[in-house]
């Protein structure tokens, strides 16, 4: 399904830790910094709460990319939540390619609640990356069926 790169606006599910990334997103808003409107922010209490199931479900429902945004390393609000999240993302990455999804579509970043510019940068870079990759193969599969 060829689509004009500029017209394709990727849908990204961003699981945001309520103690860091969610607040960073809020302050990005307060700073009137703009980012892709295909970003769906889903509030979670901790990145460690995001299950593999949720990540895969997001892809299944048609996300072109999934972001897990956790607290900075060594400074997780819940001590080890960001480490758990990292492990889980690594686990999913191991078979993502096998099921036909490019591993670049799933990324984990660590950022603090005062890092609004970094939030915007991370989200925009992700959107750019996904634009290069094109729409999710899962979506193409559904349409081509």
């Amino acid at each position, binding site marked *: 399904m060829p689509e004009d790169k500029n017209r394709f606006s990727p849908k990204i599910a961003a699981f945001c830790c309520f103690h860091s990334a*969610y607040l960073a*997103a809020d*302050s990005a*808003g307060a700073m009137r910094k*703009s980012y892709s409107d295909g970003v769906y922010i889903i509030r979670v*209490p901790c990145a460690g709460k995001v299950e593999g199931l949720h990540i895969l479900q997001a892809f299944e*429902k048609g*996300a072109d990319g999934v972001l897990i945004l956790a607290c900075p390393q060594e400074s997780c609000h819940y*001590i080890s939540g960001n480490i*758990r999240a990292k492990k889980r993302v690594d686990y999913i990455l191991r078979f993502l390619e096998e099921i036909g999804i490019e591993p670049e579509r799933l990324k984990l970043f660590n950022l603090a609640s005062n890092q609004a510019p970094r939030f915007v940068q991370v989200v925009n870079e992700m959107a750019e990356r996904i634009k290069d990759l094109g729409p999710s193969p899962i979506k193409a599969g559904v349409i081509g069926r």
Partner: protein
Amino acid sequence: MVEDTKIGVFLCDCGEVISRNIDLSGIRSNLEKISDVGHVTLSHYLCSQKEIELMGSEISEKGLNRVVIGGCSPQFCEVIFMEAMEKSGLNPYLLSIANIRDQCGWVHPGKTRATSKAARQIKMAISKARFLEPIKKETVSINRDVLIIGGGISGMEAAIELSELDHKVTLLEREKVLGGRLHQLYSLYPLELTPGALLAEKIEAINKRANIEVLTTAELLKIEGHPGNFVAKIQRDGSPITRNFGAIVVATGCDTQFPTERYGLELSDNIITQLQFERMLKSQEEWDKIPQKIGFMLDISDEYSRISTISALRNGLAAKRRFGGEVYIFCKNLKLDAPGLEGLYREARDEGVIFFKFGDGMPTISPAHGQINIQLEDLYLARELVTLSCDLLVVDEKIIPQRDFEILKSILNIDLDSNGFYQQANVHLYPVSSIRKGIFSAGSCRADLDFSDALADGRAAAQAVHQLSYSGKAWIEVEKLVVDADKCALCLTCIRSCPHHAIEVDHEKQAAKVIDLACQGCGICAAECPAKAIQHKGYTDNEIGAQLEFLEEAI
């Protein structure tokens, strides 16, 4: 999903801030078409007193059983609306917020795109709301008595502070007397008080207060129970004592160690540690043993240690003042990161203490004929090779955890950090809290703190305890994380992964059980559980799934 949900959607334009690029009235008329939406309003300032009261009456009049807010971020408004819902008799956890101001209106320029995103966000919140389940709030009683382990400066300070806040305190000390490191120090300069006088002052304050019980030569053997209601088994002079406490403060201090391998030297008569030098200064009989040329070596045992730097400055200055002679301080690069340290450094320099900075190079230390020759490349003398000889070299030591931290760690069921000190819940936000609720750590058992920081830390820990248990009661959210006993296979994954050690085995039900008071609601157990036996209310699979459904829609 419960049957017949009746959702009330409350949109707020935040004083026309949101409606500037989001067409809220258009969204409103679309929302009214959704069958289970029983009520939609659009208001100017939803968080104002008047609007909140109105919201409360709408909830009770129209029998709404879910509330969806479209407005600012939950970090600002969540608590206000939860209170309003509680007042009108609705469970406050049946609330779902679409953050259309901070994460939409302010972010996306262009009315059409912003409006369609806001509409989606609100619909996502509505779908989540359909799955929300109420959470019961309950008060539980908390024991106000506090156990403090360690009668050093932090422990004594915490005890005094807590007793003034009207808590009954038990102060546990392993040695025969209180005081810890204060017994070994010579001066607390720039404080005028001597360690002995300070110790006497604190002990007098402790003795005066009837609600402090001091148990010397006593050790903690075992802790049972939960935060708020710990049962401690203590051994004193061989006889057991049992007491109940609501909170525990660990203030056991640190240890020091001379790293022979870093220096390539052994300690000897003229190579001594800072504590040994401190002892020489303290007892007047040893004053004639203090020679004319003294060197202090820093930053070799550790990259940087605040305690070593402060005591080198303090004791170097004291030796210079009292005995004259030459005092050298050798350091990698002096770091003055505590209040008053810059002043102390200037004072030492003004008094004639000479500083040498050797940067990344390592000085050569060679003892010969009762003297110690030190050779180093000085950073500030254009890397010139400097050779000096001292009669006495005072070396810095590594600050290390005490040997019994491991034992106390397993008794208290808390963690140690990568350096072996007590793990802080968060270095910046909760420095004195441990990973377990109700257990705190203060002083140099948790970090490299000098004397004045240790004092402040004792008070900080006391305040943290007071915050937890001042009223003798605490709110808990009953079964926010609920375990399905039929699905639980007791694999212990949740118990191992809980960062706050808030899960235990319920032997009656043969299932895991979350201790509501200790749980801090991260949901890691729910995510880790291989049997999906744990659900985190507010973030259940259904609730997250309902939001993900909207990824199917085209933007």
